[in-house]
């Protein structure tokens, strides 16, 4: 049996470029690989990998396996898992990192169960135990009400990493590394899911994940309209975007893409204004990285006031328009 060595990242692409979570994984993977004094490699698998392999090296990889195959066009997990399994046996890494993204959430358990190893999803902290060399895998549990540290002594150790939990390196185009074009025989007969159609739910304006400010509404907003008026007007003054807790998305008041939290998007804007949101841990999981959190809630005992730095107790219908108006004056003047 070969000894398992090194760190492998199963990366993701967005329109031919590395996704931002992949750059975060590379930053984290580099640190772990350096601690182990071993290599960091990255698998990039897509119908076209574009300039991503070079980017992966600039962000910290020693070696990139570039797998181009038209069978990967639709990003089907049944296809990706074949690539991941093959690369895991070929590179025999000690550690495999993936993003806690829609793709990673779907792919990682498939891979772990195939390799008969353990998996910790949604990790926010990773370290190497200097004695055992095992990966210490910390993830929030109970919706974020506690944290758990896991280890796994079956190789490879697989984890998915929460978005924005790790810092990428500065991209450095002078870093050196190898790009190895790799072929994997993908058996398309085992892709048993057929995609009939994709329906995009357009969200206009600033992208939530990139917005410098977010005004987020909860169940207490009461319906779809205020998201387009009261909340949007404040977001516009802040040059930000409108988001939501889970109930507005579940109720169809806003598209699912606006849902923030453990099971939604992870955001970390400079300013996060939470409006009529109680502050459940599962929601906070998606916005705790915000620089300044501001809460507006009519209930003085709402948990959100234990999370925010500034708060107003009151009905949002009265608080928000006045806040927006005053900010407009101040920011214009």
């Amino acid at each position, binding site marked *: 049996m070969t000894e398992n060595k090194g760190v492998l990242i199963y990366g993701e692409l967005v329109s031919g470029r590395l996704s931002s979570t992949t750059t975060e994984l590379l930053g984290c993977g580099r640190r772990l690989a350096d601690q182990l004094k071993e290599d960091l490699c990255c698998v990039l698998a897509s119908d076209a990998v574009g300039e991503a392999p070079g980017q992966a090296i600039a962000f910290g990889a020693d070696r990139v396996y570039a797998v181009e195959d038209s069978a990967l066009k639709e990003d089907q997990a*049944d296809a990706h898992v074949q690539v991941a399994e093959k690369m895991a046996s070929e590179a025999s890494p000690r550690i495999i990192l993936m993003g806690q993204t*829609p793709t990673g*959430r*779907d792919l990682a*358990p*498939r891979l*772990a*169960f195939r390799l008969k*190893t*353990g*998996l910790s*999803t*949604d990790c926010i902290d990773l370290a190497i135990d200097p004695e055992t060399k095992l990966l210490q895998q910390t993830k*929030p*549990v*109970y*919706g974020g*009400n*506690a*944290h*758990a*540290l896991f*280890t*796994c002594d079956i190789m490879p150790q697989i984890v998915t990493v929460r978005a924005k939990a790790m810092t990428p390196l500065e991209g450095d185009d002078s870093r050196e590394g190898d790009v190895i074009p790799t072929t994997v025989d993908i058996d398309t007969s085992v892709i*048993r*899911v*057929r*995609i*009939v*159609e*994709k*329906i*995009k*739910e357009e*969200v206009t304006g600033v992208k939530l994940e990139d917005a410098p400010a977010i005004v987020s509404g909860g169940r207490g907003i009461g319906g779809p309209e205020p998201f387009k008026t009261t909340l949007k007007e404040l977001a516009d003054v*802040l040059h930000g975007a409108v988001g939501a807790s889970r109930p507005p*998305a*579940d109720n169809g008041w806003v598209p*699912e893409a606006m849902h923030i939290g453990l*099971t939604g998007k992870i955001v970390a804007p400079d300013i996060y204004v939470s409006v009529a949101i109680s502050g*459940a*841990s599962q929601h906070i999981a998606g916005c705790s990285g915000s620089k*300044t959190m*501001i*809460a507006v809630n009519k209930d003085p005992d709402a948990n959100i006031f*234990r*999370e925010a*730095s*500034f*708060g*107003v*107790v009151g009905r949002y219908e*009265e*608080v*928000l*328009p*006045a*806040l927006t*108006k005053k*900010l407009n004056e101040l920011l214009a003047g």
Partner: protein
Amino acid sequence: MSEINMIVCCKQVPDPEAPPSAFKVDTAANSVTLPPDIKPVIGQYDEFALEAALRIKDKAGGKVTVLSLGNKLVRDVIKKALAVGGDELVLLEDDAFEQSDSWSTAYALATAIEKIGTYDLILCGRQSSDWDAGQVGTGIAQLLGVPAVTLARKVEIDSGKAIIEQVIPDGYQVVEVGLPAVVTVTSELGNLRYAVLRGIMAAAKKQPTVWKPSDLGLDSSQVGAAGRHTKLVRLFQPVKEAKCEIVEGDSAAEAGANLALRLRQAKIL
């Protein structure tokens, strides 16, 4: 197609909607504790999965078997699955199942599903409301060698196939998969229906089937804590030093305007 056989995996968990201050960590036992007045519930996403099965049954008929693994499962909690319309309840219940991780849970559930024998659709919540791992549904599919579709917001059966609306970034996609298959369900599917009196009375009369590891042909090294692939080293609660400054005013509107002034003064805006 003949009658559709559905298996829904449901887990009993501490109420995830309990106030955050109710959650405490017992570091000696490495477990999370809640005050006794906070009752356990069926995991939220497992309830959505059960609702998905019941909607299929409403439309096309079929049988819904609810499968749950744990120990000392509270009958009033888990029997809710029968009261709302589940047909059978199978419990994998034994001391040996305690402290399972995703691997040992999925392994025992997959073994039980094979023992049940006939199944077209296996429905699971997208993730449990306690450990938040999100692995068991897909894990069962891998162990049984059947396809898996994750994050379903709608599930229908048509001509021997499942037609599923799957949530993807910025929208959803409609996918089709042959049966048998595993589908994991997300919150947009909608809440579990309420139990009606007739259902509650019928559920009270029904006895669950209880299986121990030996009934599944598993020995104690394959289940629960012994069958884990990951080791829980430490549970802890991160310290929070957040202090919220409440901005006041004579009216809510004035407080809103004062907040703007305060944020400006603190150079946050």
